[in-house]
């Protein structure tokens, strides 16, 4: 817990990443706002991340989710918002912190990885190399929520 408090101290609100605990008296649940990276279909959209910290943190990774049915992305399950990212699973290392985790997820938006799709159709689009379809489909989903 002391590490989490220290981490909280180090987190400054950054230009495009906002990371804060959900309620002030509980550092076990955090939310983060990330903005879509430029030149991606996510540009101009904001996404909310729900982070819950396990007791074993930092020895086990934080659990991070998008809002359900909010994130059309190859490595995100659209229905549940679950994220497939190596560092949130086996590749987690205790030297990572929350900020780095959130930054990695933001990076994931601009660098989708077709090898581990949670969104099968988008994965097919990516593997087919149909970037036009990929982008417009993602845009469709994003616009529809508005």
């Amino acid at each position: 817990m002391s590490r989490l408090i220290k981490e909280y101290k180090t987190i400054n609100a950054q230009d495009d990443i906002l990371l804060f605990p959900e309620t002030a008296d509980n550092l076990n649940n955090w939310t983060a706002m990330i903005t879509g990276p430029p030149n991606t279909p996510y540009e101009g959209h904001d996404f909310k991340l729900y982070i819950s910290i396990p007791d074993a943190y930092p020895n086990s990774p934080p659990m991070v989710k998008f809002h359900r049915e909010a994130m059309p992305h190859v490595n995100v399950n659209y229905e549940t918002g679950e994220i497939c990212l190596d560092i949130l699973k086996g590749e987690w290392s205790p030297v990572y912190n929350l900020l780095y985790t959130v930054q990695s997820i933001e990076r994931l938006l601009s660098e989708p990885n077709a090898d581990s799709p949670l969104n099968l159709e988008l994965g097919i689009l990516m593997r087919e190399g149909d970037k036009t379809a990929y982008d417009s489909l993602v845009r469709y989903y994003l616009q529809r929520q508005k």
Partner: protein
Amino acid sequence: MAPSGRRTSTSRLIGYGAALTIAIGTTAWLLWNSSKDEDKDMRATNTSQLYKSKCIIVTNSASDSPNIKWAKILADPNVVLIIPPKVEFPQSAYENHVVDSKDIYKIIHCNTMAGVWACVKSLKKDELVLNSNDLGENVPVDIVRYVKHISNVEDMTSVLDEVE
């Protein structure tokens, strides 16, 4: 001693009976209510089926047809256009292609046919409208798992007019 004991036993019996009736009554009422709710849901889906969501694969014949009022079709929130490769859908060339800017996102351009089918599967709309002759390709077998109904039509104009 004996009568009073009997009295107590009968009153206890009445009490049990009352409790049982109340319990059965409540359960029955709850069940009834829930089935009513289901009915309501059914009705709701039925009504929505009238305006069921559509996924339209635009082919050249439809794109070239001046009769289809695309703007009107796209105004429906549940309609998506998929433009397969080698199909032109210019915004400026035809008057009927001009779509409200807030609806442009509903037009999905694809560069590959695999991409088209992936989009269809992803969207999971109720009805898929296409012209397989124009498309020059068969509909994949597993598409039926992703849409409720496939309208394979020769003339798209007639089907699309129904939307109005």
